[in-house]
């Protein structure tokens, strides 16, 4: 599916760009963003090492095992394919907690850690498992305790009550998460459990 979307974005982008007379801008955008990707990766490099290093301590000291135990009741329902006490659960919980607290920098490395733990359980290494889909959908629903960025933008724009959208964001996020969970459960039934 990503193949088709990638193809569509590039081909439609270049074709429409040519028709709009924006050939120069489109070409420039393509070349610039290749550089941006490298900058992004380099920016990620340090934070990534910091958190994977710290997580390694958390794992070796048994902290992750404790968290895994605590979160088991919910996690078992969401991720029935993950065996009991598997470190994937710990990594998933840590990632969701980081997202919830709005620690974006920490969330990505922890999420990648969770994905590589899930990959260890995967029998077909190039195909996503249902647990992976569930994890990603929970991530994209982005339930966050305090949506700090949006609040900052609103108060900069002179809002009388910049935090009034916290409640609406929670409700919209939760609806997204719930419908995402239902969608994954439904589809994994349709596609066959793996």
């Amino acid at each position: 599916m990503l193949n088709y979307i990638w193809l569509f974005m590039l081909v439609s982008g270049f074709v429409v760009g040519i028709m709009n007379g924006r050939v120069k801008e489109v070409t420039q955008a393509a070349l610039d963003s290749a550089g941006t990707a490298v900058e992004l990766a380099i920016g990620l490099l340090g934070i990534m090492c910091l958190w994977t290093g710290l997580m390694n301590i958390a794992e070796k000291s048994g902290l992750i095992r404790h968290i895994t135990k605590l979160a088991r009741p919910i996690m078992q329902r969401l991720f029935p394919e993950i065996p009991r006490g598997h470190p994937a659960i710990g990594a998933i919980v840590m990632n969701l907690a980081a997202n919830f607290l709005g620690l974006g920098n920490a969330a990505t490395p922890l999420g990648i850690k969770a994905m590589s733990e899930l990959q260890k359980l995967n029998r077909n290494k190039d195909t996503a498992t249902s647990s992976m889909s569930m994890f990603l959908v929970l991530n994209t629903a982005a339930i966050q305790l305090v949506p700090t960025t949006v609040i900052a933008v609103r108060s900069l724009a002179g809002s009388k009550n910049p935090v009034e959208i916290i409640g609406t964001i929670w409700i919209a996020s939760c609806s997204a998460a719930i419908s995402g969970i239902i969608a994954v459960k439904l589809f994994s039934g349709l596609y066959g459990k793996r």
Partner: protein
Amino acid sequence: MNVINWISLYAIPVVFLIILSMGAYKEVKVFDIFIEGAKEGIETVLKILPSLVGLLVAISVFRASGVLDLLIFAVKPLTDIFGIPSETLPLVFLRPISGSASLALVTDIIKRYGADSFVGRVVSTMMGSTETIFYTLTVYFGAVGIKKIRFTLLAALIADLVSVIASVWICTVLFGR
């Protein structure tokens, strides 16, 4: 608001302290173990880089070309049925593909219509209630080498669509149009 600031200020130091003191308590060689883990981080970032280049190039070509305007024009009749304000449509399309671009867009929309207008509240809610789906998918699947993502994107887009509709609905109910 104070509690909120407090949490975002202390969350990371507290996480550090918990992990390190647990390590010390269990007599783990913390620095060695840290280095061992940090090495993994480098590998992972290198693994992500190719997919990141592919994704960002596609997104920026797509945005610079003006395809977005065409798409908005095409779906407007449909989104009118759900009562989604047309001022928010650019964000609806941009949100799943680019986080930084949609933040810029939200700032712009809020400046133009006012943070406390209906449109301002709806875009704030939309911005806060979903993530950049394509980025998340690319990075996470790219990091472990998954090529067939099966229904993941579809499920994520369904969740995204629900959050769009829920944003409009809850803002209408709570604040009025």
